[in-house]
């Protein structure tokens, strides 16, 4: 089975601190990492390859330094990588992002399965996976949490829903997005790390994908950010002093007085 895994380089929010006064991110010295959900996508792809054989290509779009996440993916054991990088891609919304990613996947021969993480932790849209599937005209299942059957013809998966899950059969070629329940990512292998060191990441720009500058990046985006502002700290924040029991009683009284807790049942 030929698998493409889409990965994104994001700021490492685990090491981001909140500025206590402004409640904004302090980003100084923040490292870049593979989007945590994409590690589950990589793990899912590796497990599928173990079961039915085949090869995995890690695909990313970003600035030149995003080659790092491709190398990292090589370390986890994927076979090849491809980075889409071009000044023209900058400022892309999900429409313009899927234009580039789908074009790149369309150029790869015989892709049976595309795996994405459920969403990126910086944008939180969860829109790129389904967007790629639609552009390529392929069936999809989003929010996959488990695999019940894996073969070259189809997958049977469990799809997480708000009130439970669905068991869905997906004929291939198709696309899935995965959630963390698919399985904890394995650590990179020593062999993989060695290979990653030497791996030359192939890079493609808009022209190589057959896309005009106005189809990608900011110019190719339908949405436009018009304002960015700090969230308003809702309500006042206070400490309840005094002995713990007293504070416990007091907080209940305050919640009742402010009609946050209703006593009537």
């Amino acid at each position, binding site marked *: 089975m030929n698998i493409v895994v889409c990965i994104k380089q994001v700021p490492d929010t*685990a090491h981001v601190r*909140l500025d206590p006064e402004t*409640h904004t*991110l302090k*980003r100084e010295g923040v490292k870049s990492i593979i989007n*945590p959900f994409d590690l589950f996508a990589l793990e899912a792809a590796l497990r599928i390859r173990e079961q039915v054989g085949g090869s995995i290509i890690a695909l990313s779009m970003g*600035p030149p330094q995003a080659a790092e996440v491709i190398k990292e993916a090589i370390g986890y054991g994927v076979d090849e990588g491809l980075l889409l990088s071009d000044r023209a891609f900058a*400022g892309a*919304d*999900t*429409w313009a992002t*899927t234009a580039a990613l789908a074009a790149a996947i369309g150029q790869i021969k015989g892709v049976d399965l595309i795996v994405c993480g459920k969403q990126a*932790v910086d*944008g*939180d*849209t969860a*829109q790129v996976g*389904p967007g790629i*599937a639609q552009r390529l005209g392929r*069936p999809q299942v*989003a*929010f996959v949490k488990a695999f019940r059957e894996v073969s070259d013809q189809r997958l049977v998966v469990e*799809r997480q*829903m*708000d*009130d*439970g899950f*669905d068991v*869905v*059969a*997906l*004929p291939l070629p*198709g696309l899935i997005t995965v959630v963390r*329940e698919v399985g904890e990512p394995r650590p990179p292998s020593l062999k993989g790390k060695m290979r990653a060191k030497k791996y030359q990441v192939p890079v493609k720009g808009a022209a190589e994908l057959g896309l005009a500058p106005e189809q990608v990046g*900011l*110019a190719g985006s*339908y*949405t*436009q*950010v*018009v304002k*960015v*502002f*700090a*969230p308003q700290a809702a*309500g006042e*924040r*206070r*400490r*309840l002093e005094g002995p*713990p*029991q*007293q*504070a*416990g*009683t007091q907080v*209940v009284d305050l*919640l009742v007085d402010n009609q946050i*807790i209703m*006593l009537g049942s």
Partner: protein
Amino acid sequence: MVVIIDQELCTGCGECVEACPFEALSLENDKAQVNDACTLCGACADICPTGAITVPEVERAADDRAAGAQGVWVFAEQRQGVMPEVVAELLGQGRRLADELGVELGAVLLGHGLDGKAGELFALGADVVYMADDERLAALNDDIYTQVLARVINEHRPEVLLAGATSLGRSLIPRVATAVATGLTADCTGLAIDPEKRLLLQTRPAFGGNIMATIICPQARPQMATVRPRVMKQGPRQEGRQGRLVQVALNAGDQARTQVLEVVQELEEQVNLTGAEVVVTGGRGLGGPEGFELVRKLATALGGVVGATRGTVDAGWIGHAHQVGQTGRTVSPKLYVALGVSGAVQHMVGMQSSDNIVAVNTDPNAPIFSIAHYGIVGDLYEVVPAMLDRLAELRGQGA
């Protein structure tokens, strides 16, 4: 395309560097410099004290779809015949937007065996219901749902389409937006109309909720947004309110490629975190799995559900279904009680938009206190029993 910085006017104060949410600005030789990460959001231009930064106009391909598109639509999702609360919230908000624009409010309903559902949508404010009732739509298969929804959109051309940011909505709607070739804003918490331009102003948290961004879709139609549940207010329910029902027939060739083999509603342990009014969460400060007994007691007394931090889930104290945070569920209940939770960023991004946050922790420097409306420094095993006693007392059940 990046912002233009007038190097003469720039004083190198660095305010723009702080304000930029995209790390696109830096100071070099005491002057602001911009890189490719710029999205032209204008946050820097707004804050620059000397007016050194200007945002260039982006030339976009002409798109005349805004002309002639009319009406506000809501995607009325249902699963197994049950419409989630967010549908009523969308209709409430959609009604306000439609009235402001002076247009009809439409609702689109896809499924099978939908008797009585249209009346429900009329009662909640819809003027028109577009209903496709077909056994091929009985369960969610994104491809056929997309085909039908995109066809109805292209035929009737609404200017706005709202859907719930639920699992179903976030799986289907990005595909629909791509099919009709328009913009989509995810997980909005604010929606308003710019009356001059008749544009939908879509506000959403970005970067894990640390920054709010307002987004528009100036040319393509419909302007599409998924909307976070439990944020918009439901409108008044008017029993017997009438509307126009438009039946949508499927084409002979409409066929899903995926197949839903089984629908499992997890009744064993209902953890409807996303829809809960009250969430009581336990962290590592509980000391062990038995600590969740107390969490459960308080959750029950408050009519809420039990949440958990990643630390407790990874330690095996409680199931992952309870996890709140970046790799769990995002919640925004009326009341969030954090017990023994220190407040890792990944946890806080999943709950910081809660209306009221109570935090109990022995560490006065725990980050959770920076966002708690009511912070109690103390042992939760002393504080929580006192809360339970007081609740029982106030309810007249004796202490």
